[in-house]
């Protein structure tokens, strides 16, 4: 199996999402870009784990998926102007 092209396309998608992070006129736009980056990176991590033939690497992807959620929630909370 050759996984490399898949990861490279994913990296291109990440780059596009970063453009949205950079350009986004409003803050929610940027958060959407960040969230997209998160999901894509988790996918890339899983694929890379398979590509390296190192199953234990996939732990990183799990942690990543769980913790990027926390990041998103925090920033959403911030722009919501709610109390902590």
């Amino acid at each position, binding site marked *: 199996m050759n996984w490399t092209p898949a990861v490279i396309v994913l990296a291109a998608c990440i780059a596009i999402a970063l453009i949205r992070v950079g350009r986004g006129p409003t803050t929610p736009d940027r958060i959407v870009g960040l969230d997209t980056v998160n999901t894509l990176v988790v996918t890339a991590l899983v694929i890379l784990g398979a590509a*390296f033939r*190192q*199953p*234990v*690497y996939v732990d990183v992807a799990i942690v990543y998926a769980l913790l990027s959620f926390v990041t998103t929630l925090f920033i959403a909370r911030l722009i919501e102007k709610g109390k902590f």
Partner: protein
Amino acid sequence: MSQLVLNAPFVAVAALTCVACYIIMTQKNLIKIVMGVVILQGAVNLFLVTLGYRIGGVAPIYTETSGTLMVLPVPQALTLTNIVIGVSTTALMLALIVLIYRHTGETDAEKSRRMKG
């Protein structure tokens, strides 16, 4: 080719260091300066990990693969320590910034200073 590729992270380290130095020298917002320090930490971490990388090596963990080439474990340990130290310094800096803001109502480096001369 592979040599060139190995150098790409080092180039990134140099670029990140320049960006971080630019931020901490020119930006007046205190929180922004802390972001510069975080970027500098990231640059140093990347530098250390890249130093330990060997082409074709795998992570220094004993799993099923035995006898294969491994990347150097020591720089990774150093990087881990630096990450943990970095988060504590960042937290302390931000807490102090919040306190400065509550005393002076400013997060600007020029307007919030009280001591000089």
